[in-house]
């Protein structure tokens, strides 16, 4: 029985279990008329279905997780029996061949008889294992069903148990994001530690020269590499600052216009149009920046006698700012709208003008949310890659001049990891260190912003 079919059967079984359990609860209720059911019959049905489904599903998942490795290592014994003990890398190569052989993508050379034997052994065991799994899972499901079914009685607190089960599943779902974050952090940290074993920490953090080109094979000629992150970080901040200088005023003012001044009809049309900006793929913004904005800036610069690089921080920052406008405007608009009308009325009734009301009452009340939306925009700007790759270039210049080409952390991570890589070269590992740096920087920004919001927030209600 294939795993997919097994799952389908399991689901069908548990819906049957629900139906049986519910009917049984009805029957019990009718029989013991003196005693009312504690829970509604639907909950009894649900409890039976859960007992039928969850233990079986757990077994199934554990099996899928571990069984394949067990089977492969078992099958590989027939290879090691012929070839003798293998080194880890030879072992993983042979295992790979075995897997390819089993799934039928093994074309390149004549088949090693030992490997063929192992493959046959693996296929045979796989079939037995699948059958055994089906039998185990289905019998656990039926046992669970019988156990729960037999326990149905009026006093059973089925509702509380079902609710508990739902609560547990909600908890699991909510912790998945947390654990994913932790996993990402750790994977980055471990690689970064390897990097810092080869490049001193302070050289990385305060070095003024970024030139990661180095020989990754012994026969290659290359410079020794220099990993000062400061120019890259400066580039990120420069471009983000330009982008925010565009996005915050335009986004905030358009949010104020939309929520306080515009008519409902204009708002109904303009707001989705603004949000479309957020839906344009960043690659398309990249074209626009590289092919329209950058040459325009260069042409303008030339006409007033400035020398502008053909790929400039300004072009990337401007286009990124436009991309981010909807993040600021749409969220801020929602937040400004959520400020109670009674506050506006209170201010207007004191003889304040509309602009005084907005400045002194509405915006302060909406401030925490507005800062939140700006923060979201900042993290978008810092993490943005595509526009910068296409419009700002790859040269790691340490400069504050927006007319020069700069590069950013994300762009460098991409270029370091694209192409043939060796995962013990500092050049590759530098990408992880940059990632960690970026993570720490955004985290610090978040903490600062939270602190600012908490300090200056004006709470209504």
């Amino acid at each position, binding site marked *: 029985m294939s795993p997919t079919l097994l799952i389908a059967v399991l689901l069908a079984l548990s819906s049957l279990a629900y139906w049986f359990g519910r009917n049984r609860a009805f029957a019990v209720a009718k029989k013991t008329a003196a005693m009312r059911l504690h829970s509604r019959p639907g909950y009894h049905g649900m409890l039976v279905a859960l007992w039928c489904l969850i233990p079986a599903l757990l077994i199934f998942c554990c099996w899928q997780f571990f069984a394949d490795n067990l089977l492969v290592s078992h099958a590989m014994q027939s290879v090691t029996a012929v070839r003798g003990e293998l080194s880890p890398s030879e072992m993983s190569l042979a295992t790979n061949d075995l897997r390819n052989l089993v799934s039928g993508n093994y074309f390149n050379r004549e088949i090693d008889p030992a490997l063929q034997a192992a493959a046959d052994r693996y296929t045979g065991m796989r079939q037995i294992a699948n059958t055994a799994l089906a039998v185990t899972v289905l019998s656990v499901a039926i046992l669970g069903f019988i156990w729960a079914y037999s326990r149905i009685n009026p006093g059973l607190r089925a509702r509380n148990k079902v609710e508990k089960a739902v609560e547990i599943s909600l908890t699991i779902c909510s912790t998945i994001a947390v654990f994913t974050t932790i996993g990402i952090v750790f994977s980055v940290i471990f690689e970064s530690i390897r990097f810092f074993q080869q490049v001193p920490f302070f050289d990385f953090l305060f070095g003024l020269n970024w030139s990661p080109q180095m020989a990754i094979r012994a026969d290659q000629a290359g410079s020794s590499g220099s990993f000062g992150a400061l120019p890259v970080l400066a580039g990120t901040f420069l471009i983000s600052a330009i982008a925010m200088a565009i996005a915050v005023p335009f986004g905030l003012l358009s949010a104020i216009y939309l929520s306080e001044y515009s008519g409902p009809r204009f708002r109904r049309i303009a707001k989705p149009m603004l949000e479309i900006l957020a839906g344009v793929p960043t690659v398309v913004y990249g074209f626009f920046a590289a092919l329209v904005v950058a040459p325009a800036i260069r042409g303008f610069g030339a006409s007033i006698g400035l020398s502008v690089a053909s790929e400039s921080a300004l072009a990337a920052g401007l286009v990124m700012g436009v991309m981010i406008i909807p993040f600021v405007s749409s969220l801020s608009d929602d937040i400004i709208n959520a400020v109670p009308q009674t*506050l506006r009325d*209170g201010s*207007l*009734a*004191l*003889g304040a*003008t509309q602009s005084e009301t907005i400045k002194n009452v509405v915006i302060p009340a909406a401030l925490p949310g507005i800062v939140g939306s700006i923060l979201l925009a900042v993290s978008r700007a810092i993490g943005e890659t595509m526009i910068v790759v296409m419009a700002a270039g790859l040269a790691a210049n340490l400069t504050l001049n927006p007319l020069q080409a700069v590069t950013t952390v994300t762009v460098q991570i991409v270029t370091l990891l694209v192409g043939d890589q060796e995962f013990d070269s500092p050049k590759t590992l530098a990408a992880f260190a940059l990632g960690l740096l970026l993570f720490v920087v955004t985290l610090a920004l978040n903490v600062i912003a939270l602190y600012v919001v908490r300090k200056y927030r004006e*709470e*209504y209600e």
Partner: protein
Amino acid sequence: MSTLETTVSIYDDFAAVKAKTESRSRKVDRDNRETVGMPFVANPRMTCRQVNVFYGEKHAIKNVSIDIGKNEVLAMIGPSGCGKSTFLRCLNRMNDTVAGCRVTGEIHLDNRNIYDGNIDVVPLRAQVGMVFQKPNPFPKSIYDNVAYGPKIHGLASSRTELADIVEDSLKRAGLWNEVNDRLDKPGTGLSGGQQQRLCIARAIAVRPEIILMDEPCSALDPIATATVEELISGLKEQYSIVIVTHNMQQAARVSQRTAYFHLGDLVEVGQTDRIFTNPSHQLTEDYITGRFG
């Protein structure tokens, strides 16, 4: 306008009413929607003539004419949805903020029609303050709540003067003793009754001449209500007050004249004690007796 004339006019009115009550206890018929009683006073602060309000197609206020006297408390009562609050909001043009709302007729303040095209609502609202049904302190400190109006109108030339205005307003609103040690704490942290008095202090701080109150006590407990009512009685020495209320005892306690609205019509206006003891209009009687059981 002399006090004598006022007295005479009030006396005339009393005489008319007396004659009416003596002749019979018959009431004005329910179908008659002409305003009965005494909508006009001898020395009005504001005069409203043929005021109509439309919300889109809905005719919310129908041809209402009434005066608001100097230093009097005018109570407006009536069943829910009868247009009391709508009418109140006409008096400082707060209806301007309501989409689809149209006002016709004339409301005069200082011999100017406040619905003239060239009237600026900003000084008007400074002159005609408003307190709302639900306390709506700004999410600022107590001090800043009260200082807000004087600041935007430039009433104080120095910091100490502003502090004096704040202190004076809070004292007049009867809140000073409760909050003088925590003026920098948020106004939203006060209790409901204190918040409402803070809103009254905020309104007083811009030195209005008329204060509109839209059910100022409906969200308050009886003790806070009593405090606010006491405050209103004290305030009428300096201000004209128009108060909308659902609570008839409250209208009886705080007001000198009472106006009864019914489905957009101003049905009856009269001395408060007379309205509650011997109304002239059948609808008024129905309403107050229904309430009192």
